[in-house]
C-alpha cells in the first residue's frame, strides 16, 4: 500500500496533524506520554537500587556513574516529565471536582506556567553538577 493512502489518517486535514490537535488533546497526549515514561523509569529505578543486593561495591560504583553530568542531565529531563505530569494531573483533579471545566484551556496554560517556573528551578538545581567542571566545585 502506498504511503499516500494514509493521508486521511496522518495528512494535513486529519485530526492527527499537529496544528489540528486542540489544547485539551495535547494535554491528554502529554499526560499519556509522560505517564508511560515514568512507568518505565520506576522499573529502571528499582533495578538500579537492586544492585545493592549484589554487594556494596557494585552499588557504590553504579552511583558514581549516575553522578556524571550526562546522567544528571537525564535526571533533569525526568524531572521535567514529573513536573508536567503533576501539574496537568492537578488540572485533571480540579475538573473531577467540577472546578473550571469550562475554562480548561486557560487552566492548562496556567498549570504550564507554574510547570515552567518549576523547570527553571530544577535547571538551576542541576547547573553546578552538569555545567561546572568537577574540579571547580
Amino acid at each position, binding site marked *: 500500500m502506498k504511503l499516500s493512502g494514509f493521508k486521511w489518517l496522518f495528512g494535513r486535514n486529519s485530526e492527527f496533524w499537529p496544528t489540528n490537535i486542540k489544547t485539551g488533546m495535547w494535554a491528554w497526549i502529554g499526560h*499519556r506520554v509522560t*505517564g*508511560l515514561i*515514568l*512507568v518505565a523509569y*520506576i*522499573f529502571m529505578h*528499582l533495578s538500579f*537500587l*537492586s544492585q*545493592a*543486593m549484589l554487594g*556494596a561495591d557494585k*552499588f*557504590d560504583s553504579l*552511583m558514581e556513574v*549516575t*553522578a556524571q553530568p550526562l546522567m544528571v542531565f537525564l535526571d533533569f529531563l525526568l*524531572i521535567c516529565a*514529573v513536573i508536567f505530569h*503533576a501539574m496537568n*494531573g*492537578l488540572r485533571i*483533579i480540579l475538573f*473531577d471536582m467540577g472546578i473550571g471545566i469550562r475554562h480548561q484551556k486557560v487552566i492548562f496554560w496556567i498549570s504550564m506556567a507554574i510547570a515552567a517556573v518549576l523547570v527553571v528551578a530544577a535547571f538551576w*538545581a542541576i547547573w*553546578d*553538577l552538569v555545567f561546572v567542571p568537577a574540579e571547580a*566545585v
Partner: protein
Amino acid sequence: MAEHTIATSRVGGTWPWFLQRLTAVLLLVFITLHLFIAHFWHVGEEISVDSVSERLRDVAYIVVDLGMLVSVIFHALNGLRTVLFDFDMFVKRKKMLDIGLLVLGIATTVWGIVILLPFLEG
C-alpha cells in the same frame, strides 16, 4: 464512534478512579519531599550504601519510602490500565488484565521492600 466517547472511569470502575486521585495527591507530597531531600538538602553529596544506611536509621525515612513505593506502583499500573482502556485494549478481558496487574503490583512491591534490606543491614 459511540463506544469511544465512554468516560474511562465508567470502563475502569469508580474505586480505581478514586484511588488514582488519592495516590496522585499522596505522590505529590512524597515526590516533593523525595526531591527536596535527595537533590536539595544533600545536593552533590556522594550516595553510597553507607550514606543511605545512615539515613534509613530514621524510621520516618522508611515510612515515607514504603508509602511512596505502594502509591507509585498502584498509580503506575492503574495508569497503564487506563491507557490500555483508552485504546480499547483488554476492555473485554478486564478480569485477566486486573489479575495480571495485581500480581505484577504485589511482586514489584515485594521486590521494592527486599531491595531495601541490604541498606538496613549495612
